């Protein structure tokens, strides 16, 4: 065989590795919280799920909307959910309306137990044992948080834990702008969102 050609063939593994490394490098800096959801800008798919506390009561998509809210996907098997729980409690104290979606949990009792121990930041908690709604939403893993506006439209999706930084930098502006648009009150710190949107510029 021609020596040049042979060297070229032996270079193939290296080239394949370089290509792979390129993807790994960009993967390193792509923020998983920016995972696009095909559902952003659309309504949450229809569902009918039992309440976490009360198996006989079911909820459907009509609970979403009316006012801007967060839909938080969580589970007791998820250590990060434990980490973000305290912050969700803080948000509730600030008056943020949060709906919980308990995702493929070990058991109802475990989830209820967890909420009793850690406090319950959720207004309503859905029990999605089979992960059907989560599948429709394209949930990547727990925790995930969706911002939903007063019309039940998904505005934003955040993958990973909700914390002070994520909330202040990304989620709160979206959430409070939606509240302003729905004619609801917002904390003083977010009043400027109303002015910004009047001027036609966003701060996203």
């Amino acid at each position, binding site marked *: 065989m021609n020596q040049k050609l042979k060297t070229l063939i032996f270079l193939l593994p290296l080239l394949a590795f370089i290509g792979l490394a390129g993807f790994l490098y960009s993967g*390193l800096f792509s923020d998983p919280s920016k995972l696009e959801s095909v559902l952003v800008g659309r309504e949450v798919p229809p569902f009918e799920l039992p309440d976490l506390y009360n198996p006989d009561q079911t909820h459907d998509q009509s609970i979403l909307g009316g006012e801007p809210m967060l839909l938080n996907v969580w589970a007791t098997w998820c250590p990060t959910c434990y980490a973000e729980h305290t912050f969700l409690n803080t948000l509730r104290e600030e008056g943020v309306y949060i709906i919980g979606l308990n995702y493929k949990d070990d058991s109802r009792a475990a989830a209820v137990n967890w909420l009793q121990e850690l406090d319950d930041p959720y207004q309503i908690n859905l029990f999605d044992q089979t992960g059907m709604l989560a599948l429709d939403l394209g949930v*990547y893993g727990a925790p995930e948080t969706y911002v939903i506006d007063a019309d039940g439209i998904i505005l934003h999706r955040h993958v990973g834990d909700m914390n002070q930084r994520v909330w202040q930098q990304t989620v709160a502006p979206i959430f409070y702008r939606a509240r302003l648009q729905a004619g609801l009150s917002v904390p003083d710190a977010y009043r400027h969102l109303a002015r910004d949107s009047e001027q036609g510029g966003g701060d996203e």
Partner: protein
Amino acid sequence: MIAEIGHFSLVIACAFSLLLTVVPLLGVARRHGGQMAMARPLTYGMFFFTLISFIALCWGFLVSDFSILNVAQNSNTQLPAIYKLTAVWGSHEGSFLLWMLIQAGWAAALALFSKRLPLVFAARVLAVMGMIGVGFYFFMLLTSNPFDRTIPLIPVDGHDLNPLLQDPGMIIHPPLLYMGYVGFSVAFAFAIAALLGGRLDASWARWSRPWTIAAWIFLTVGIALGSWWAYYELGWGGWWFWDPVENASFMPWLAGTALMHSLAVSEKRGSFKSWTVLLAIAAFSLSLLGTFLVRSGVLVSVHAFATDPARGTFLLGFLGVVIGGSLLLYALRASKVVSYSRYELFSREVMLLGNNVLLVVATMVVLLGTLLPLVHQELGLGSISIGEPFFDQVFLWLTIPFALMVGLGPLVRWRRQKWADIQKSVLLAFALAVLLGWALPAIFAERVSGLAVLGLLLALWIVFASVAEIKMRLAQRDNILSSLVKLGPSHWGMVLGHLGFAVTLIGITMVQNYEVERDVRLSPGQSYSEHGYTFHFEELRAIEGPNYHSDKAVIHITRNERDVETLFTEKRFYNVRRQVMTQTGLQVGFFRDLYIALGDELGDGSYAFRIHYKPFVRWIWAGALIMALGGALSISDKRYRLKRQSARVMGQTSKGTSV
């Protein structure tokens, strides 16, 4: 103070690894024997100081020194002493220190047992081990120092170790896996040293074979242990999840298995040399890649530890240097290698090539399946996830030709085999396998499933073909007993390895096709029957453990009015982490496991239970252990211990023995 000693030792070990990289190679370049000979003492120094550093960290955990950040985050005073030690490698920083301890340990073992290698070669091999060390020491010192302090704000008590990791299986699982991962660095170092020297000959393959098999044994046992742990600890009743972390350990195993077989060809026949070198590079590269995937947070997985882009960047850079550099060296040097041996289409060489191709395809499938979601997302095609159905399907199709070749390969001679000579044995073995593969489920199971017959047929084919092969080897000899011994440990190692694979295959087939899983509701005093077993829920007890409290259900199992066993299944609530864990009750048997997990309370005093009937599930892990045993037997072969003998004599002793 102790922590500072640990930290400082780590710095000294790093300095040793730098010297180990430079001095012996300088010696080789200048043909300076003294500098080359420095490789050994430098290796011992690297190992010694890493050991001191590791002991210092263990001490920090044992005495609960919460001024060390790592200890404060992963251990607390309530933790039992043995789990304080496990916590050393339960964290990101600690697990890298363990990794380095093992890496330095392999290097030291290599230095100790390589006295018979030519000095130039030994110097190069140890220098490559040093290079790998440099990367990891800098990684630890710069981005994940296990000795970071919490001073001045020392916490009163620490967090808890993740309850999932508080289990005897977890004490030895990571060290075993690391022994395997890092062990491939030895084969890698041999390959790079051979490339540097420009000599890829049979002796290189023979030297690196026992080391490769040793690493493979550890990895095999490690993976089996991890699977067993997931089975009884995670409480889901599954034994393999195709989770990225599991895939990360499975890829080097597949490549390592291919490498073992390819080394046999290189040693015996002098063929496949550049291919073998590529596999040696691949096996270790995949170990590194696995570490990167798990540690950098590129993939989100149930196991994933805290992630940090700085660490990821460093690891990727290191990966780029090690893998990219070695592949470049490979392209430059291996392309000059000329293979001269001849073989025909139906020969042992081609069988092993087929085995290699299938294993490499399997590796690629796992790699792509693990990375595709990432690539997909980076190309802007949206997020997708690839899971069990994909892998199960592909592996089903890969297993069929693979298992056929595992059986046939050993029957076939090197260079050339006449079909007529083995036709009778092959057809007989295959006919028996087909017959029994169909008959066993037809007699013992309530239904015959096509996949079950296929799996059993393949496994039995391997068994019968192995028997046929041994019979054929004995046919030429008179005294059966002494010739059984004369086949040699290496040969028996191969037979055991293949039989182990068959056993695992039987386990997988039976579990996949015949397991039963039921969710039932029971109040104390009620019973449920499945497969002739009656599960009687006797009572529920409240238990206080050292760092948890729990509800414990007592289940009495009977069969045909006879007692089988009383099982306990618990829901534990861990106080510090506020995490709930299920402890499953297991009744272990040779032919089946009974598995029961306590679910939630359903009101009115009844509880949900998950009851599994798992036929042959033990065989999955038993098979892995048999494979590992085969590996051990193979290493014990005398020809790896023959010292200072010329290649000519070696060639003669290995004649007649097989792979």
